[in-house]
């Protein structure tokens, strides 16, 4: 009985990971997600898939790292990845801030030039 539940769970995990991967690929294909940002998501889904097939993987890695309660490794890894990704987003945000500022200034100066020429 234990095995049945476990297999059911594994199938659900694999299907979920595949769906997620399909979703990401579709976003990239439609041009809604830039490749540079999709990299982290592809890695995430690859990891999900890996651990849905390799059922003892988590236990083995946790054991290697000296973590007694294997699921806490998931939280550690997930939180770490989230923090890194948030920092990355802040960097992207800062760059866009700069670009928007430059564009707005350029536009304002051009508008001024245009108006000056129209008045002549």
């Amino acid at each position: 009985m234990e095995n049945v539940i476990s297999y059911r769970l594994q199938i659900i995990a694999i299907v979920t990971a595949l769906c997620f991967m399909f979703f990401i690929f579709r976003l990239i294909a439609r041009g809604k997600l830039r490749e540079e940002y999709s990299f982290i998501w592809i890695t995430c889904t690859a990891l999900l898939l890996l651990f849905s097939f390799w059922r003892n993987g988590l236990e083995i890695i946790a054991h290697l790292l000296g973590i007694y309660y294997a699921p806490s490794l998931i939280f550690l890894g997930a939180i770490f990845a989230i923090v890194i990704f948030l920092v990355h987003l802040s960097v992207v945000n800062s760059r866009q801030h700069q670009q928007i500022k430059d564009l707005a200034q350029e536009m304002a100066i051009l508008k001024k030039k245009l108006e000056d020429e129209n008045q002549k």
Partner: protein
Amino acid sequence: MKTNLKVLLVIPCFNEEAVVLSLFKEIRKTVFPSGIVVDALFINDCSTDGTRKVLLENKIPFIDLPVNLGIGGAVQTGYKYAWRHGYDVAVQMDGDGQHPPAELHKLLELIASGEADVAIGSRYLTGEGFQSSSLRRTGIGYFKWLNRQLVGVTVCDSTSGYRALNRQALQLVASYYPDEYPEPEAIVLYAMNGLKVREAPVVMRERQGGTSSIRAHKTVYYMFKVSLGIIFLYIRLKFNGKRYLL
């Protein structure tokens, strides 16, 4: 003194409908030494009041920013304009009437004589005119100390927005200028790029309208943000060897 000097007055304004017209008229009336041609350029930073209307109706030259950029972005727009249009000097002047145009020649003299690349109008050198609150002065004292520690330049009135830049300085700020509360940070930028920063005593007035960009409840944020900005700019310029001067 250099005989011919083309000067652009850059006046950032955000919701200053009550002041812009009188300020513009005052600039027009001011008599400058011969050979000095002064153009005024208002930068309307997406004002939500009638500033734009007043500027338009009175045919005051202005640049209209499509989005609100804050004081740093607005001033930089003016600097970029001055740099591209070949002005010898650009002067930043607040749009609220704190900075009397009649005092402008004091800044221009420092630039024209080559004594300074950046001339800052300071209200504390002689202690005349409007002196601002004691809390504000404490903060300014702190920036004075911080700037002296880092770059060895003593600027008594580091938040003063009344400053003149020559072409060398203009080239620098056209490529980089701090965004938010830029004044104290810009001093580090100038000094680290080898520009001569000098102060001239200027008599200031109390603002005639609008509100300061440094609000009381934001003081803590202001001090923190500017300190961080100054220190990181210093580190970036010092240790990365990164120069914004091209």
